[in-house]
């Protein structure tokens, strides 16, 4: 098992290097640091000196890949590629435009992100799986039909509508919870209820439909027919056999998103003013803070790759037919 995990981690390394190269190409080759400086400084203040100063402050004044002026190892390390891209592997993300250390900022913002993302994730899973199970239980009835219609309608509504509508109705008209903001300690729940609720509701449509198909696929399998032929009551067939087997693809399918929960949600966090990583990313995009966006791309990829590894491991754990090879 351990050997399997180590091998899986080693497979991930070339992919991470690839991600790193893509971000490097995107941020430094498509546009030169000079272009970025011009954009950041604005039209009025662009002088060659100002551009030089801007680049020097951020360490963008070095050559891209190879430093011909330096000697020995410094030829490789005194470059933008090494300083800005390679050092991300050890968690050194450099500084944001406002001078703060990005790594520390990320550390302090994962808490609020998780406070929203984790309850949303767990509650959605419970709600959608039970809803899908109910629909599958009453399959081919009017209830199932209208349930699917509801799901299709719900997934056709823009995610923005759920947020804007929910904020308007619950916070502005009914005044139940504050519209946005974030608190610490026990008072925090008042700020968390609405984003979590909206997150759960906006995910119902597509997930329920997806899980329902998984359940229905399971219903038509041979072992289910055997169970029925034995004379088992339908409820027992459903909860003892179908539910358990259908949960395998459902659970292994969602493992991949668990690490990404740390990143939080861009939309929810920015609408509700949660000081998490999602709103950090949005602020960085709006302020055109290239260093922060670059770091978030890298971290997001790392978390996704971790998720893939966890998925593989979870497959082997739940399905004994898959061997660690």
């Amino acid at each position: 098992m351990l050997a399997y995990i180590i091998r899986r981690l080693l497979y991930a390394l070339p992919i991470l290097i690839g991600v790193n190269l893509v971000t490097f190409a995107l941020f430094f080759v498509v546009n030169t640091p000079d272009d970025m400086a011009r954009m950041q400084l604005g039209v009025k203040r662009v002088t060659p000196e100002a551009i030089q100063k801007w680049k020097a402050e951020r360490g963008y004044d070095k050559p891209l890949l190879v430093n011909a002026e330096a000697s020995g190892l410094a030829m490789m390390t005194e470059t933008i590629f090494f300083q800005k891209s390679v050092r991300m592997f050890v968690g050194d993300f450099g500084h944001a435009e406002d001078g703060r250390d990005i790594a520390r900022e990320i550390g302090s913002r994962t808490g609020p992100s998780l406070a929203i993302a984790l309850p949303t994730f767990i509650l959605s899973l419970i709600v959608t799986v039970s809803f899908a199970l109910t629909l599958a239980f009453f399959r081919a009835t009017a209830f199932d039909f209208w349930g699917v219609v509801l799901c299709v309608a719900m997934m056709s509504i823009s995610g923005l509508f759920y947020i804007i509508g929910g904020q308007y109705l619950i916070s502005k008209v009914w005044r139940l919870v504050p519209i946005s903001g974030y608190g610490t300690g026990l008072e925090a729940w008042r700020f968390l209820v609405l984003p979590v609720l909206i997150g759960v509701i906006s995910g119902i449509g597509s997930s329920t439909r997806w899980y329902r198909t998984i359940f229905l696929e399971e219903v038509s399998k041979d072992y289910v027919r055997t169970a029925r032929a034995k004379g088992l009551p339908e409820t027992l067939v459903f909860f003892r056999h179908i539910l358990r087997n259908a949960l395998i693809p459902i659970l292994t399918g969602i493992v991949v998103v668990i690490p990404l929960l740390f990143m939080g949600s861009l939309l929810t966090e920015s609408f509700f003013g949660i000081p998490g990583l999602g709103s950090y990313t949005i602020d960085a995009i709006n302020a055109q803070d290239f260093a922060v966006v670059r770091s978030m791309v890298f971290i997001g990829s790392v978390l996704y790759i971790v998720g893939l590894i966890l998925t593989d491991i979870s497959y082997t754990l739940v399905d004994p037919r898959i061997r660690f090879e």
Partner: protein
Amino acid sequence: MMGFQIVVLWSDMLIWLLVAAGIGVGVLIAKTPPLLTAWRRVGANRVGMASATVLLAFILVGLFDSLHYRAALDGKPGQKVQYAVEVLSALDALATPLRTRSEKTYSEPFATRLYAKETVDVPGRDSVREYPRLKYGGRHLGEHEDEVAADAAFTAFRAGVLALLGWLALAGMAAAVVGRDSVIGWQRIWRGETAFAWNAVLVTLGLILLGVVPLFWLSGQYHVFGTDKVGQDVLYQVLKSVRTGLIIGLVTTLVMLPMAVLLGIVAGYFRGWVDDVIQYIYTVLNSIPSVLLIAAAVLMMQVVIDTHPQWFSTAAERADLRLLALCFILGITSWTGLCRLLRGETLKLRELEYIQAAQAFGVSSWRIIIRHILPNLMHIVIIALVMDFSGLVLAEAVLSYVGIGVDPTMTSFGTMINNARMELGREPAVWWSLVAAFAAMFILVLAANLFADAVRDAFDPRAV
């Protein structure tokens, strides 16, 4: 008759290219019996055909909005003709009243007075603060301002009768097509005996006409959906947004399709190092969360656009190119899923006997791919295309909110929502822009989703 100069934007070209491609594919399908049977199954699906009718209505609006021109300016005779800087479309020309009759600021749907109070000089008295009358909305009412409801209802009724007559004519034509004479055709349509779901199409068409004709009529006298902050008619903005949404949904697939199909088939067919390289590329791209990859790419695109202002002669051109760049970026980030599907399917296909036989006969690899593999993958491609459309339309709104969507000067559902969302906080709330944008988007996406389901059911019988 005023002169005009035809302007062809890049996105227009792609849209019309797509129309041509659609017709080409249609001809191809008509010649391929298995695909034709599948599409016949789509045609028999009532929900599918009803949603297709709605989609066609949207596409029609989008196509009208994709014929651009610059109007000639009034000049002295004998002088060289000058053209306006503003690029207009055929839709703009049709909706001239909507486009030009702007109020000062917000006004509610069917309002006759402005949303905000203003200081008005009243002859004989001093200036007073009151809600001024709108310049255009309900102007024909004159003194009888309180008769809006009765007047609007009457106009809507008249338009509805007209719509009904038009619908009857269309239904009569359909009946004549279906049966030997209209009466028999009529009976067959309503009993659902036709292979093509004529009844669903006609009912939907009737509903669309009943909605659109009164809307069109009323919009000449009122601002049916109200006006926005700068007094522009919201209905006009909704109409303009349709094209943006369609382009995002359609052109993106045009970008990603060649890449996904080619790389997927090549990886699955040749295997070996080709497969390894292609798998590596899409695993890497897939590993980057798509919103972040899009954000990074759009940020860089903005830098390119900002540092090269000399590339664009008009603002419309710049917005247009930015829209296309966005489609391109969305395409780059979304081809991986389809590519993986096609690779897996090709791996299975290449082991089949008829392909092994073709290889044994010495048929070249590319010939095998084009003649034997590609046609057998078409159903996956078609399903993926229709499934992606609705997601892309929804994504546009989110991306525009995040600030990495279309150009802020370009009307789209995303920019409409983005501009209107703070206005809910006003007292009384300004809800109409938001509701109109969300409602139009909902109808478009719902129709696309239902159509996608119909197509998937027809092409993939295993799907539940």
